[in-house]
């Protein structure tokens, strides 16, 4: 099993998007570090705590050069020029700078650098290239599994750390955080909801939910039966974190990493729109634009009885809300709608074509 896992070759199209996402995220971090360097003192000239020996901490000029190389690597990777070596260079420069001062340690930055390093080992240079032609087809995909494993490790380490901490388990860590949000909730939502945020039982329940979610995310992503639910939960989890806490690029990093769990094969589903309806034409065009993971074959059918018919991987045809559910399941920007639609269509019988 391990051998087949290490030597499997599958379509590499989606990995190009993974490269674009991580090059963009790392470029954003690099620009921030360059701005900090230009506006303030260099960390090596003031109080700092290197993880490497002090003699390996670069001078201000060398550090600036490293950041420059890092930014250049990101830009080249983004454009698709020498994409893999450029991304690898950017990740290595970033990791070196990162280990030069533990005071600048942020989980999200460390995770971003590790994931970028792993993405550079995947065949991520075969698609989404602004310069040079795409090379569609299969390629070794073992490193993409490592990207997934890296996500799982973060969820697992975080959840086990919380599980081992009595203050976390009983809600003592969350309660003061909720208290900070109380005035906002009281002002914009309702005082009764704000009262809920002050209740220790609510903080305890939220802590149990957070730990369970992280554990589920660490394990559930690996099983086809739970993957979609897990991805949906992960999207909600990170959107929630993004809205309520300042976590730099953490949410974007983890959500981008979810691309490693996308089934590599392309256009195994289809969606057909009623070509006679203006709405069908417009929505068909829009959905084909939103389908950047190339999940669907897009068709316009003359005289189709319903606005839209979606066929899943097994060829089952879905219409009405079920069709929208199938569309949401495989279209990233519509994915948050998938679970509500799944619940609404729970009892519907699927019509075999």
């Amino acid at each position, binding site marked *: 099993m391990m051998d087949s896992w290490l030597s499997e070759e599958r379509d590499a199209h989606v990995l190009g998007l993974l490269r674009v996402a991580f090059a963009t995220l790392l470029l954003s971090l690099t620009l921030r570090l360059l701005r900090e360097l230009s506006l303030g003192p260099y960390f090596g000239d003031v109080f700092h705590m290197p993880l490497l020996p002090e003699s390996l901490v670069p001078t201000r000029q060398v550090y600036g050069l490293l950041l420059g190389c890092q930014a250049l690597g990101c830009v080249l990777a983004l454009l698709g020029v020498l994409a893999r070596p450029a991304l690898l260079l950017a990740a290595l420069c970033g990791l070196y700078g990162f280990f030069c001062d*533990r005071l600048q340690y942020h989980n999200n930055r460390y995770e971003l650098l590790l994931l970028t390093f792993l993405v550079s080992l995947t065949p991520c240079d075969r698609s989404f290239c602004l310069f040079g032609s795409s090379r569609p087809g299969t390629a070794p995909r073992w490193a993409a599994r490592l990207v997934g494993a890296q996500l799982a490790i973060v969820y697992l380490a975080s959840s086990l750390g*919380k599980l081992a901490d009595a203050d976390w388990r009983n809600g003592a860590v969350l309660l003061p955080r909720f208290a900070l949000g109380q005035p906002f909730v009281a002002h914009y939502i309702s005082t009764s909801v704000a009262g809920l945020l002050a209740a220790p039982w609510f903080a305890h329940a939220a802590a149990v939910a957070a730990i369970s979610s992280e554990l589920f995310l660490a394990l559930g992503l690996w099983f086809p039966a739970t993957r979609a639910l897990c991805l949906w939960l992960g999207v909600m989890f990170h959107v929630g974190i993004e809205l309520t806490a300042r976590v730099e690029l953490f949410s974007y990093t983890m959500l981008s990493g979810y691309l490693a769990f996308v089934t590599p094969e392309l256009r195994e589903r289809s969606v057909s729109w009623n070509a006679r309806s203006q709405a069908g034409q417009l929505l068909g065009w829009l959905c084909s634009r939103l389908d950047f993971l190339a999940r669907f074959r897009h068709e316009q059918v003359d005289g189709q009885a319903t606005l839209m018919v979606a066929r899943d991987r097994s060829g089952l045809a879905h219409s009405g809300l079920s069709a929208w559910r199938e569309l949401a399941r495989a279209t990233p920007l519509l994915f948050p709608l998938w679970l509500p639609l799944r619940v609404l269509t729970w009892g519907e019988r699927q019509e075999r074509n």
Partner: protein
Amino acid sequence: MAPFARAAFVVAFFGLELAGIAWGQRAPDHVLGFQMFNETSRLTIHLFREVERNRKRVLLPVADGRWKAPDANGKLRDYAWQDRVRYSPLDVLEKSVHARYGLAGQLFHLQAALDDVVRHIPDDESTRALVAKVDTMKNGAPGPQLQLRAEKP
């Protein structure tokens, strides 16, 4: 890359990372440990200089982190805690601030900051040590006031 080399890479990469996580779980600041939102703690740092008065050591509060002290020639020089310590939250004195990555982590960093600053004030002839008294609050519950100290070399 041959499958054997891939397997070796996987073992080396994740072995190193997991070792880092295990080390980070025990490190006071949980560096490399992926401990997200591990605490909701706060600290207030009160900084003091320890000087000699009538052969006794006394603590003088350092307002806003700034003080004046004579050098070997008796000339008064200006010093500031924030000249060396630019790191948030340790650059904020006399004000309650969030202890990022936990109280233990920030106390660990504060001790290192005190050690660093006393090493960088060789011209200050009057300061014998820097002392930080720290009011703590761990996960919403008030904790003890702790005292950290760094003797000038």
